[in-house]
Structure formats: C-alpha cells, structure tokens
C-alpha cells in the first residue's frame, strides 16, 4: 500500500479534531481559571499587604495548590479532556503536570520515583523558559552596552 495515498484515505475518513469547538472550550476554561486568579489576587491585595505587582506570586502559588487538590481527587484530568489548552496553558496546568507525575511515580519511591520524574512533563517549560530568558537578556545587554537601545 502506498503510504501517501493511504494518508489521504485516513484524512478523508478519520474524524477531525473539532478545532472551533475545542477553541471555544479552551477560551471558556482558560478564561474562568484566569478570572479565579484575578479574584484571588484581589483577596491578597485587600486582606494582606500585597500590591498589584506582588500579589501575583501568592496568587500563582494558590492556583497551584488548587491544582494539587483537583489533580489528587482526579478532577483535573476531566477538566483537561474538556478544556484542552484552556486547562493546560494556565499555571494550574503546569502544576497538574508536575503533581500528576509526582503521584504517578510514587510507586518507585520518593527519590527515584517522585524526585526523578516530577519534571518529566513540565521540565521543558523551565529549561526553555530559562534558556530563552538568558538569550533575550544577553542580546538586550549587548545592545544596551553598544548604545543602540536603553533599558
């Protein structure tokens, strides 16, 4: 069988991903998660001494905490099947990736299982976040030193 013509057959018959529907679901799910984040940040600003800028750190930590509960009770994967990127892109999705791997690999022990595998899924985010931050800052620093731009 010719692979190319076969791929055409597959494209014709296999069900398509419902892109528009998925996008709408992602929009709503992601929107709700971010709104919850916004409300939590108001709580931190109103009741504690956090400013708009500094409230984002405890807010993110709280969101990850909520993500831990939802992951542990098996709810986050259902949100994930519904919301797709809507639940994967917010920091709760990052938390879910770390926490689900930690729970999953508990069976191999806390060092070789949890410790080694925790960042199995979320690792690339930190690696490439850090590396791109390095590159971007390096370029900017060079440009500033050359006097092309200023900070």
């Amino acid at each position, binding site marked *: 069988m010719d692979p190319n013509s076969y791929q055409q057959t597959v494209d014709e018959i296999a069900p398509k991903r419902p892109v528009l529907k998925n996008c709408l679901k992602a929009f709503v799910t992601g929107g709700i998660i971010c709104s919850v984040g916004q409300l939590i940040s108001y709580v931190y*600003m*109103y009741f504690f*001494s*956090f*400013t*708009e*800028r*500094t409230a984002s*750190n405890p807010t993110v930590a709280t969101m990850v905490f909520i993500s831990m509960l939802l992951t542990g009770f098996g709810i986050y994967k259902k949100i994930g099947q519904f919301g797709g990127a809507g639940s994967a892109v917010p920091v709760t999705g990052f938390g879910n990736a770390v926490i689900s791997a930690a729970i999953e690999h508990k069976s191999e022990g806390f060092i070789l299982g949890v410790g080694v595998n925790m960042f199995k899924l979320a690792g690339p985010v930190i690696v490439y976040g850090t590396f791109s931050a390095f590159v971007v800052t390096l370029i900017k620093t060079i440009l500033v030193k050359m006097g092309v731009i200023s900070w």
Partner: protein
Amino acid sequence: MKKFGLLSCMLLLLAGCSDEKPQVSIYHVDDDQEEVEMLKEVFHDNMKISEASGVFFDHQLVVSLQVEPLSKFSKEKIANSIEKEVKSLFPDHEVFVSSDLKITWELKKIIEKQPTEDALKKDLDELRALAKENT
C-alpha cells in the same frame, strides 16, 4: 460566538462611560485649599484617569491613581507623565506617584481617617515601602 459579541458590546459600553470626570479625593494636613485645587486640576485635565487620591503632608505629596480600563496598557506611562506634571507644579514637595490598586485602597483609607501628622507619617512611609517592592 454570541459570547464574543456580548463581551465586545460590554467593552464598548464601559469604554463609553469614561466621559465623567475622575473621582478625586485629596487630604491636606494643613488644609491649604489652593494647593488642593491645583492638584485637582491636574487630574481633571487627564481624560484617562478614572480615580485619584492625594495626601499633602510636611512638604511631601503622595498620589495614587487608577486609569480607565482601556488605558491600562499604558498605565505606567500615564503615571510617569502625571508624576512629572505634579513635580513641576510643586517643586518644593517630595512627590510620590503610584498607580497600584493596593496603594489607592490604602490611601483612601488614610484620607477617610483624617489622621494626625505623626500617624500619617508612619502610614505613608509604610505605603511607599510597599509600593517599591518588586516581588
């Protein structure tokens, strides 16, 4: 898709409400109405400001402001230009401007209390320390 339409309508509606003059509350420890009016003018002239507060105290001036939602993207720039303007108006004052919501809330609390000079100094120092935190 309906949702998008609805939300954009709301956006327009809310943006359309910005004709009103900003809410301004100013507290002057020595009750110098001339200075208060001068500061009020600055805010009233700027269409992008929705809310502003100020406290005069011992040659110091602490200002907080909130900008119209759709101008929030350039919040930092607006705050900087206001800071410059206020500084040129009150050259003998030590001016501090913040556009943070938390600072607005705290400053309003202070103004409501109408505190004495000593209490004010302590509160305002705390406020400025808070606003300077980065993380």
